[in-house]
């Protein structure tokens, strides 16, 4: 009997399969349609990193006639053990994609393989460095693979400056995710911005500024695996910090600070990543550094469609005169309602200085955390020196590795 059952089961599974595949004929292609794919590591509505990319894709659809986005969400082994980047790209290309954005450093290696497999399709590996001629992985990328990243350290310096303007205890805290080149340079950049403004606008000795970094272990809380960001933020405030800067994807820093402020304490927070992050607790929010992928995505898509795209490693500067204009700047800063008018004025001065090049925070003398010299007196850091920061800087408390 079991054989018969098996036959029936098989027949059952195969017959509709054949019927349906017969029905799945070719789709009608529209003329001058431009199809591009966006592969996300998280859900498209995560109010953080992945949502910012999804909105970037929507921006292209809105501003480029004939553009059609194909999105694949949550490509990570925990959510989709059966899916691979290669498989997703196969489908996107089969559906006509001429350009694919892979939006996580987790995809960097697999994007190389995909780009080699489809030389006629353009790939953009977000946050990667394979296409950087002066980078550590120079020469790895085939000619149809580029990289785009926003120059977030600049916005983190603004965040640090805001923190230094607001602090009364002289103790700042940075809620870090995991430790790598990217997170080190962001934490360090905020520190340098804070030092500059503590000195320049507060008239205090920047060496007196305490700056503690605690890495929770991942981009968001995983119970039992990472440190609990709620607890870490509580500890920060208990030990005297009155501004908490967030480097993680979720909102614990501003939520906990907000609760403490409700109890009458003087605390502020600077969230990260998402343009609407201040909404959690506006009155204690000093502002938010955020990514805005739309303009870069649009430029890339237009160039690919016109056939004028060329391989590039883009580390795009902010449109300094339009930090809150989402049609212009790839990264930005939104003033938070927690800023006083006086702080806002100082912060504007700082931003203008950075825009004009008069203010350079990544400038020597600068030592690494272990005391070795990183930049000589007056030396300005190169792109590589910022991108590949090997340790935290002298004066920052917290592990470098």
């Amino acid at each position, binding site marked *: *009997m079991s054989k018969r059952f098996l036959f029936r089961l098989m027949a059952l599974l195969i017959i509709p399969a054949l019927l349906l595949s017969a029905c799945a004929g070719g789709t009608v292609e529209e003329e001058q349609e431009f199809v591009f794919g966006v592969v996300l590591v998280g859900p498209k509505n995560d109010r953080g990193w992945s949502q910012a990319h999804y909105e970037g894709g929507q921006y292209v659809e809105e501003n480029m006639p004939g553009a059609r986005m194909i999105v694949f969400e949550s490509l990570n082994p925990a959510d989709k053990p059966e899916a691979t980047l290669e498989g997703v790209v196969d489908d996107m290309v089969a559906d006509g994609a001429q350009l694919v954005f892979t939006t996580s450093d987790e995809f960097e290696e697999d994007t190389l393989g995909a780009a080699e497999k489809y030389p006629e399709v353009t790939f953009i590996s977000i946050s990667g460095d394979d296409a950087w001629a002066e980078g550590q992985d120079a020469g790895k990328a085939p000619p149809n693979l580029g990289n785009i990243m926003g120059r977030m350290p600049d916005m983190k310096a603004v965040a640090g400056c805001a923190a230094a303007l607001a602090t009364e205890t002289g103790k700042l805290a940075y809620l870090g995710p995991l430790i790598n080149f990217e997170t080190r340079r962001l934490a360090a950049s905020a520190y340098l911005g804070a030092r500059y403004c503590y000195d320049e606008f507060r008239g205090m000795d920047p060496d007196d500024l305490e700056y503690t970094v605690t890495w929770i272990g991942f981009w968001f809380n995983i119970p039992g695996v990472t440190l609990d960001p709620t607890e870490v933020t509580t500890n920060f405030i208990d030990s005297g910090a009155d501004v908490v800067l967030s480097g993680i994807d979720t909102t614990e820093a501003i939520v906990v600070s907000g609760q403490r402020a409700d109890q009458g304490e003087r605390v502020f927070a600077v969230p990260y990543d998402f343009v609407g992050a201040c909404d959690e607790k506006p009155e204690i929010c000093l502002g938010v550094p955020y990514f805005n992928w739309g303009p870069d995505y649009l430029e890339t898509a237009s160039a690919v469609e016109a056939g004028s795209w060329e391989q590039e490693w883009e580390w795009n500067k902010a449109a300094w005169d339009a930090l809150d204009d989402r049609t212009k700047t790839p990264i930005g800063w939104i003033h938070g309602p927690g800023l006083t008018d006086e702080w806002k004025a100082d912060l504007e001065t700082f931003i203008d200085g950075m825009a004009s090049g008069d203010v350079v925070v990544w400038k020597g003398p600068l030592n690494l955390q272990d005391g070795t010299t990183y930049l000589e007196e007056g030396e300005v850091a190169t792109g590589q020196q910022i991108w590949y920061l090997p340790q935290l800087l002298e004066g920052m408390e917290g592990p470098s590795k």
Partner: protein
Amino acid sequence: MTGRAWLRRLWPLAPVLGALVITSGLLLLFGVSPFEGFGALLQGAFGTEAKVLSVAAFWVPLTLAAAGLVVAFTAGLWNIGVEGQIVMGAVASSWLALRFDAPRPILLVAEILVAMAAGALWAGVVAIFKTRGGVHEIFGGLALNNIAIIFTNYLISGPWQPPEGGTFRGTVPFPEKALFPLLGVSRLSPLSIALTLGALAAVYFILRGTYWGLKLDALGRNPKSAFLLGVSSEREMILAMMFCGALAGLGGSVRVLSWFDSLRQSISGGIGFLALLVVMLALFRVVLVPFVAFFFSAVLSGSISLQLRTQLHSSLGGILTSVMVLLVLLFGDYRQLGIFGSRGGKALADE
């Protein structure tokens, strides 16, 4: 043949058709034609050679874990811990792949054996908790699943993190010779196919042709009388769990040494839980396991195309398979209908 006899013959189709109807309804609800939706799913699973190979590659660990589960279920055990056993197998293989150097054949055999041992040990702990500590295997298994996942996270963000710093993604890629030989550019290894077919044959033979298989069956049907008849329930339970753990561990090994090339954050990602569904849909019978597992693998892989084509959430494939399992569990007790005689369905179908 009478109409009634036909009805009986067609009865097994009911849950499958029911699930198709329900999922089609969902598709219609979201404004997608079911023909387009299922068409995309099929193309996603079988549209190209690469897709077929990918379906087969995902089938391997799923089938291995499910084959092991059939043995555990026969002994009346709910080995929910199979997920953690896959993970521990993956961890054990990764340890050899990262730290040891030997000629390829020796290294591969060692990686496979150590994965099976690790899976078996992890399952043995659950079994001993049950027999000695009175902890039900579901709770013991769930706890050990979590520990296995936390242990992986510790390894990839701690001692095994890449030299450039942890991104929490995984370890560095293993050297070529530590990996299974692959078919072309796919993630499928002929070696895994051979191992899986061997495992299926072994399970079939054990359950049909050995004294141990009989004892497990007796234990699963009625532990008390089996004990009175002289079956050592503790020993057989532990062995049945360890057997299942060994196959799950092997699945984990396949996962790191052919699907990926390194130990990743969620190396299994729920394959163990899927395998539980596979076994249920297969009515706890090992002969059906490879086919049902293939069906699961095809539907899940096809869902990727379904999501891309329709821009619906790709969990639709998961809904399709889950509804099917649910309907089989609800209406699928064929024995009551007298279609298959008393052999169909083992211990759990009795419950």
